[in-house]
């Protein structure tokens, strides 16, 4: 087990991420912050006040449940509880920041893009992730990244957040001995 980010480093990383988003946010389109359930949702919620400090007031906040859009239902096992998408605004012509905790294969983001586009036609969608662990399987790249780290397939990157897990940290586990 390797600690990638502790509590302080996570705070700094989120602030850095926020500054990058704020620097790119347009002034002529409403900004929408949309988190991917479940930790992307929590991160997106945290970004709202941070963005406001940087002078960007998000017009909308929403949550995407991508369970029904995944292409790997058979491999994740029947554990995911479908909690539903909560997007109570029309994403058409908004500038959407899609937020997730870990970017890995890119399949979650592919599913999220499909889910979002089913709801409307945003002006643009940008992708913000706390950790990019590499090893993409799809041509999807983040626009804003908190931490980039190279990993192997037998690694697991776990983002823990106070709201969900009681602690703020990012940890890397080596699962090679468990298979």
């Amino acid at each position, binding site marked *: 087990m390797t600690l990638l980010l502790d509590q302080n480093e996570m705070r700094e990383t989120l602030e850095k991420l926020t500054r990058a988003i704020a620097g790119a946010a347009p002034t002529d389109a409403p900004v929408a912050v949309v988190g991917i359930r479940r930790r992307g949702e929590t991160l997106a919620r945290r970004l709202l006040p941070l963005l406001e400090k940087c002078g960007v007031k998000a017009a909308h906040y929403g949550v995407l*449940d991508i*369970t*029904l*859009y995944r292409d790997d*239902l*058979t*491999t*994740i*096992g*029947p*554990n*995911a*509880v*479908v*909690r*539903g*998408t*909560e997007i109570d605004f029309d994403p058409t012509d908004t500038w959407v920041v899609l937020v997730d905790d*870990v970017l*890995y*294969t890119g399949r979650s983001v592919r599913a999220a893009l*499909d*889910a979002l586009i*089913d*709801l409307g036609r945003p002006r643009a969608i940008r992708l913000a992730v706390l950790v990019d662990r590499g090893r993409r399987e799809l041509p999807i790249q983040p626009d804003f990244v908190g931490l980039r780290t190279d990993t192997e397939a037998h690694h*697991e990157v776990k983002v823990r957040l106070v709201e969900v897990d009681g602690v703020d940290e990012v940890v890397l586990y080596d699962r090679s001995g468990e298979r």
Partner: protein
Amino acid sequence: MTAAASDKPAWTRKHLLALADLSREEILYVLDTAAGFQEVSTRSVKKVPALRGRVVVNMFFEDSTRTRMSFELAAERLSADVIDFAEKMSSTQKGETLIDTARNIEAMGVDIMVLRHPAAGAAYHLSQAVNCCVINAGDGQHAHPTQGLLDLFTIRERKGRIEGLKVAIVGDIVHSRVARSDLRGLQKLGAHVTLVGPPTLVPRTFESMGARVTSDFDSILPEMDVINMLRIQKERMTASGFPSVREYVRLFGMNRQRLKRCKPDVLIMHPGPVNRGIELAADVADGPNSSILRQVTNGLAVRMAVLFLCQQAAATSSA
């Protein structure tokens, strides 16, 4: 990369045959999943790709409008292809057995069979004979699990809980698969169930299933949180053991006077279709205590959840 491999799957069933088979946790898992599906029906594009490329066949050997439509729409909202098996035009009329018919349909590459059949146990029988998922949409007097689930869902939605609630089911209990499924589900979730009707239609044998049985509807009204009025099947009216319509309405019909004696927030349910003026007065059916249309709406979300979970379990077990 989410869900740790050590977690025990919350749902592993590829068939849904009866609520009696399910644990309390499994029932709650379906209800929670259904809650997640509700939002799909509020979108402008009412579709998600969860069952894209899958084929659902509706096999209805009994007339049904809402259950058939509900399953069809649920499957279509999950992007499945739906085919309809109409018994009257089929070769079962030429003497083919249910299992032969089902195997022939399965050979065309079907993933889920939704079966409504007049014989109790038909869905179980079918599930033993085919490899695809089987969802029971009502088998004889035995079970109607998705109706039971949507009733539980509606009660939980309106009351915030099920545990500890007092629920009356009123009508022709002995012939009702809805009553049996509701009873099983409610008991597993900790509700107290009272079965109400004339002794010929509510035999005391139901007491052995843990329900209270009474033919005195008026005496129990004030304590009930939920009253589920079953449809009186007019085709049974002529059968022995059935009171006259007038007598039934007088003793067991829900009307404005009876409603006044109930708790102000009592939930009045009905599985539909309603015989207005018989088991349920029109003003009560359309009043604020009634959840009849909400049950229909919720039925869609519950059936989406059931189709999704069973298909997912089947795909996972064969992977």
